[in-house]
């Protein structure tokens, strides 16, 4: 496949991220591979500590030191971006990859009006004059649904409600017209009725502008409604990846099945929720073989010995020895 000829925009291959600590090196991401096509929304779901946010941070080059990429590669439109010098990466971030984080208050500078922040971002990345950039900022605010954008452009972040602030953050992430956006828990701090508005907005904008989106969240409901494909992460690895409908309705990996069954449903009441016993291991105590084996109802001998790689399992790809056995 020649780079650029197909629709693949972002390709992550065998990504390994480690944190050196006093008590040894912790491997937080252990061989992550996936790709995102132009205009596609990929969901990344998992429990706290599974490595989903870290994957997003590695892609936008914002790993917190001492965390570092020690293996694999990240390609944006065929070009490697994981080994770029900081200055070059800063250009990629913002211009080619936008970022939306959970808490809009920490993303926005409280000392600058939202108009100032938008104009600066636009002028850093696009060849526009001050007044052109301001007009562009106003049209972005209108597009993300800020009422009376022309009057409110000089307002400060604290003058907006949580939902409105997150709309401003989305405008800020998209105003340089990036090819891709990494959104890390963009609706987690918001109430449900606001969350639905923000999801609909992100979906519409991604479709209209052909922007690829990597949506990181722990909320399977949000993923189900927003994404085209989903990657389920567990203990620093991708357990399963595939079309969202298949992963939700016909999960292949025992962890995915357990996760789906443990979510209380709105449309029916059960006496008891299915539960996965135990908890996800800490990075210091990842079990040998498949990291899920101590909690897995279907664990076999091989699961305690060998790490399974991603392989076809039904309509999805799953990192599970069950599917190896069946295919042999």
């Amino acid at each position, binding site marked *: 496949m020649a780079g650029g000829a197909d629709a693949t925009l972002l390709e992550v291959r065998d990504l390994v991220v480690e944190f050196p600590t006093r008590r040894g090196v912790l491997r937080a991401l252990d061989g992550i591979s996936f790709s995102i096509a132009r205009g596609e929304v990929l969901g990344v779901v998992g*429990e*706290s500590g599974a490595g989903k946010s870290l994957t997003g941070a590695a892609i936008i080059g914002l790993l917190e030191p001492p965390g570092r990429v020690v293996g694999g590669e990240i390609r944006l439109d065929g070009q490697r971006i994981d080994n770029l010098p900081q200055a070059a990466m800063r250009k990629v971030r913002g211009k080619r990859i936008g970022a939306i984080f959970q808490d809009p208050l920490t993303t926005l500078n409280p000392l600058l009006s939202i108009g100032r922040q938008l104009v600066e971002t636009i002028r850093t990345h696009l060849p526009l004059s001050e007044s052109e950039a301001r007009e562009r900022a106003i049209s972005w605010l209108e597009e993300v649904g800020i009422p009376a954008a022309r009057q409110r452009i000089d307002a400060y972040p604290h003058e907006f409600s949580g939902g409105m602030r997150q709309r401003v953050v989305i405008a800020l992430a998209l105003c340089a017209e990036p090819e891709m956006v990494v959104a890390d828990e963009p609706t987690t701090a918001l109430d449900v*009725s606001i969350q639905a508005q923000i999801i609909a907005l992100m*979906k519409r904008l991604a479709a209209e502008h052909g922007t690829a989106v990597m949506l990181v969240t722990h909320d399977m409901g949000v993923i189900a409604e927003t994404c085209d494909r989903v990657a389920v992460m567990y203990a620093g690895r991708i357990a399963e990846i595939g079309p969202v409908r298949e992963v939700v309705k016909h999960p292949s990996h025992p962890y995915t099945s*357990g996760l789906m069954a*443990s*979510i*209380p*449903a709105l449309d029916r009441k059960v006496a*008891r929720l299915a539960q996965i016993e135990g908890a996800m291991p800490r990075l210091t105590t990842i079990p040998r073989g498949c990291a899920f084996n101590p909690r897995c109802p279907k664990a076999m001998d091989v699961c305690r010995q060998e790490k399974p790689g991603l392989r076809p399992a039904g309509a999805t790809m799953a990192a599970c020895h069950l599917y190896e056995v069946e295919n042999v």
Partner: protein
Amino acid sequence: MSDAMAADRPVLEAEHVTRVFDVSRPMLARLMAGEKKRMLRAVDDASFAIRRGTTLSLVGESGCGKSTVARMAVGLYAPSAGAMRFEGCELSAARRDAALRRRMNMIFQDPYASLNPRWRVRDIVAEPIRAFRLARGAAVSERVAELLVQVGLSAADGQKYPHEFSGGQRQRVSIARALASEPEFLVCDEPTSALDVSVQAQILNLMKGLQERLGLTYLFISHNLAVVRHMSERLGVMYLGRIVEMGKAEAIFSKPQHPYTRLLLEAIPDLEMVGRARTPVGGEVPSPIAPPPGCAFHPRCPLAREKCRSVRPETARAGEVEVACHAVAEGWG
């Protein structure tokens, strides 16, 4: 009073409970600026009763007053108006009576903040036992071990400190502590909101199991409607301090009547919604300091008419549930 009557009596009863907070600026600053006092009506005329051995859930978005109700239910706040009664006894009086106070307890949202990091788990769980003099000497540690096993930990876990546990295990410790005083009534304020879904399922199953075994009564506060459906017999939906719809949980989920309840149910992302598009309802929750006149929901309500902008709807029976809505009461909903 006969036992039969006591069994029928609600464990907790709120009668037209209102709670107002003074959120004005400091007096000097306020006088200099010539401002009036600003009052926040966090809970406005809420009435409900919880029957023994059942769960009543209150659900709503941030700022709707559900946590304020929870705090009033255990006497951490006194109502500004109306009455809150525990076992038929006015709550402030019940709080002064150690025998009654022992019978209610609370589980909080954040198991990281609600456990003392400097205490061993066995001391955390033993504190209520010692405070209420429920056991002494070796019997205390026996009881602690029993409680830890009851919540799915092991007796040896008592040696550890809270930081040695994961979030879900910590919430189990909170539950063990809440059960230590042998209460019959537990107020649970978002007990699983800080937990991952697979752990949430463990904690919800544990809470339901304990309810069946010990005959506990729960007041369950949550913003997650799916969790609420799983846990409760009765449900109250709150918006800006008022209970806008209240009744059997099944009745509300199968036929939501208040436009806000419908909006909430419609807005929740659901696994069943794979690939389906929806049109979210616009608007945001207004500030509770200056709620809209009439029905507080009218600026966001698709059914709002003139009357909703000026006249406050009273709570009225509508089929199996009680609803505070002009549209439902007058049949244009």
